[in-house]
């Protein structure tokens, strides 16, 4: 990626489900390492926007560039490759793989990126140590609390050092104290690695940490002055 290339660029993007317009003529640029928060009412299209950026969904019209590459021109296999190498996802419902242990969940993106088993074990061990959850490595997700699961989800999203992390309501399922811890962890880790963080949230506390806040209102994306 050339210097100065935005991590994410949307040009005149619209998304319609059947006849329901979710996003219209949306333009957006997010710089590398930037922390952008997207707010809006439930159903306003926050998740849709993240899905479009992550290549999980297709725009009805317009162009989306991710790390300088146009998603429109990519095949599904190529999109998957970009997700695997350059993106990390954090979901509201954690979405850990229930049949894998904590350590294996973190090692999964590393394995997909061809990192050796030994190296992956070391990196997942470090991450778990940083999270203060080293003793949980062999436990399964169902044995953890919600906050712990979300920490593991963040570790999984960051394990392969992606260029961009997309977080969809990561605190929506957590109590206030835990939510605060999770957001701080995400912010701290992304800033430490220079990772772009785009987060959809309702949490007002997050807004204070973000570099930029965008609001979706009436299917339009608007810049909000803090």
């Amino acid at each position, binding site marked *: 990626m050339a210097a100065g290339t935005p991590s994410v660029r949307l040009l005149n993007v619209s998304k319609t489900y059947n006849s329901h317009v979710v996003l219209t003529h949306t333009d957006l640029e997010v710089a590398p390492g930037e922390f952008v928060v997207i707010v809006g009412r439930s159903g306003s299209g926050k*998740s*849709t926007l993240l*899905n479009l950026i*992550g290549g*999980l*969904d*297709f725009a009805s019209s317009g162009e989306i560039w991710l790390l300088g590459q146009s998603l429109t021109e990519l095949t*599904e*296999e190529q999109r*998957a*490759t*970009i*997700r*695997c*190498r350059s*993106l990390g*996802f954090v*979901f509201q419902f954690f*979405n850990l*793989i*229930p*049949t*894998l242990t904590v350590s*294996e969940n973190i*090692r*999964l*993106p590393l*394995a*997909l*990126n061809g990192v050796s*088993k030994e190296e992956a074990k070391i990196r997942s061990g470090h991450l778990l140590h940083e999270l203060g959850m080293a003793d949980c490595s062999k436990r399964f997700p*169902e044995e953890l609390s919600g906050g712990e699961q979300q920490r593991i989800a963040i570790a*999984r999203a960051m394990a392969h050092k992606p260029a961009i992390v997309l977080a969809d309501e990561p605190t929506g399922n957590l109590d206030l104290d835990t939510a605060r811890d999770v957001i701080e962890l995400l912010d701290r880790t992304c800033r430490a690695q220079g990772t772009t963080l785009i987060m959809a949230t309702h949490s007002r506390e997050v807004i204070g940490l973000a570099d930029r806040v965008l609001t979706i209102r009436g299917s339009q994306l608007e810049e909000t002055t803090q």
Partner: protein
Amino acid sequence: MIGLLSTASGRFYLKHPWQLCLAVTGIALGVAVYVGVDLANDSARRAFELSENLVLGRVTHQLVGLDGSLPNSVYRDLRVEHGPVLAAPIVEGEVRLFDSPGRRFTLLGVDPLEEPGLRGFSGFVPGGGADLSRLIVEPGSVLVPEGLATELGLSTGADLELIVGANVATVRIVGTIREETLDPEGMNLPLVTDIASAQELLAIDGITRIDLVLTAAEVERLEALTIPGARLLPAASRNAGFSELARAFRTNLTALSLLALLVGVFLIYATMSFAIVQRREIFGVLRAVGVSRRQLLLSILIEAAVIGGAATVLGLALGHALASGLVDLMLSTIGDLYFTSTVTAAEPSALIYWKGLAIGVLTTLLAALAPALEAANTAPDAAMSRAALEQTARRVSRSGARLALPVIALGSLLFIVAPRSLFVGFAGLFLIIVAGALLIPAGTTLLLRFAEPAAERVFGIPGSLAVRGVSASLSRTGVATAALSVAVATVIGVGVMIGSFRVSLAQWLDATLIADVYLSVPDSTATQNGFTEARLTAIEALPEVAGISLSRFTTLPTVDGELNVRAIQPGPQGWGLTLLSESPDNALQRLSAAEGVMISEPYSYRRQLSVGDDLVLPAAEGDKAFLILGIYRDYISDGGSVLMPLDLYRREWNDPRVGGVGVYFHATTDRSSARTAIRALVREAPSIRFRSNDAIRERSMEVFDRTFKITEVLRVLAGIVAFLGLVSALLSIELERARETAILRALGLTPRQIGTLALTQTGLLGLAAGLLAIPLGVVMAALLVFIINQRSFGWSMGLTVEPAPLLLGIALALSAALLAGIYPAARAGRSSVATQLREE
């Protein structure tokens, strides 16, 4: 409230139409196989009874000849010297239609003047131009069944060509017969002719038997008489052996259909329990908002009844269609095995449809009951937890495995406590199958635990993910794997059993068919059968011939049914017997010295006779005891046979006729020219049938294969039921994993990788089910070979486990599993990840 719950259930299936479709298919197929076989079985049974009733009429007893025929004088003596009795002489034989040689009919030669008192032939002949007196005055005239005349477009006065033995004869139709009550279509009736015409057509001097209607006093009086060469038997005993065997044959088929139903039950259970466990969270919510256990249970059972009812109706229609194909197969098998000329299809009882309906609906309800009770009795919070569900599933699978041992013990105990009962044998077999099914979920988990390190080494974490995905979904995969394994084990077990039988039969034929050429006459009771002294001497004198054996195969009437007699004068290579047990002091030498007889294995088993026992046979001079010197293997006659030296037979039964000749060539002889030379010698005797050793072996194997065709059909059906059931269960499991798939795609797994993952998961499950089915299938085969076949037919055979049926089983399981993975794999590549995440 129930209405609302039912609406919710309905909408669930509307949202998952494929699941509904597969559930209905699983139930319908299970019911169809059971009903189809039951209908065919009933049809065959009724057809047999019908033909027996039509021929027997009011007849209570029969006076039969010891060598298959009676002199004409016996009838005259009976009427003139032994007082007035209601009696009618009968000459009976088999004929085939010249234009349609596959269709066999009984030719019944009757005395038209005597018949009305016995069979009510006057009622038998309601018109249609029939006039019994014309049978007397017009030689070669017959009455044909009305249905046949209509079918062939023949009217009174037309000629009909028949194949009788090796000859073709033309008869004239002088009327038709019809039987309104027993056989309104008239397709099971015999061709009726005058006794003299029958004797001429069948080339018989005497009569086949005398049918009698006797009171108890008359029976006593006649039994006190000694009529040389004849024996008085109750009419029902004539076909006792056949009835018993046909019953064993039908029991076997019923058991196979029950096996198919058992597979169907597992599938019904798998589909219904899956549909229920899939909605545990919904049920948890419903319980949380105040729906009572009773209401929830009732709603689930109503749902099961509706699905089960609809699927069962479909299954009944399918079963009806299946039955028509099975009836033909079954009747041709009965025809091959037991020979009865008048059996054709009969309308089955309507009760079977009701039974099928009850079985389909009740099975579905029972299948739904366990998961429904579990869902209704679980606390609402636990009902919503998948972890709790999987924990329960693991607990149940462990308990199931522990329960398997006592079930096996009970099954084995049944084999021991009732060593001869076929019914109990099947009960034991079913228990062993159930025990196998109980072991399978735990076995799958164990197998996959061993497979996981290898999968992880090869595929990394995705490999491990695939393995764990299977074992972690035990609540979904456990029953499906058990169902598949039982079905595949059935396919393997029946396949191994047929293979074992085939190998044993081939070995037995090799040991038995020791002559190079066999000459025989179709009806050895005929006076002129072509085996003249001069012809036999000429055959023996041929330079190519090392020697000949002579045989006379006949039947003896006994109270236990007809007993086949094999009287043999062995050739240069001996008796050709495979002895299973024999007297210690050179049994074959003693047999040659006419010190006793040998009996076949089925006869020994059925009549519980052993070496050293006496066998009482109706000889010409009255009952006579013969020492049993040995028991030999005989796969041809499951009714039982007794073998004795020809000299002994001739001495005791005063029957000098020869029915068959075995010709042995010198080792260096050119077989082709030797056969030509023998053909030339018998050319002038058209009644003599020439068959080479190879031809008989080929024909025997052909009959064997045809006999087991119906078993093969059922095996294939069980395979199809298993196949669809597994596809249904695995497809449902994979579709349920849509969210997990979406997460993996979000993490960067390509559609191709997702597809591989889905196929690996289903493939692993299929492979596990296939591998676990092998020991269960082999155990089933062993039980079928050593217990069921022995109890059904009295045959023993070796167990030959060839790789083909085992590989077929694994291939079936794997292909079903992979097919089930294809749709989710393709779906993963097509749909948008965001949509999948949102839908879930």
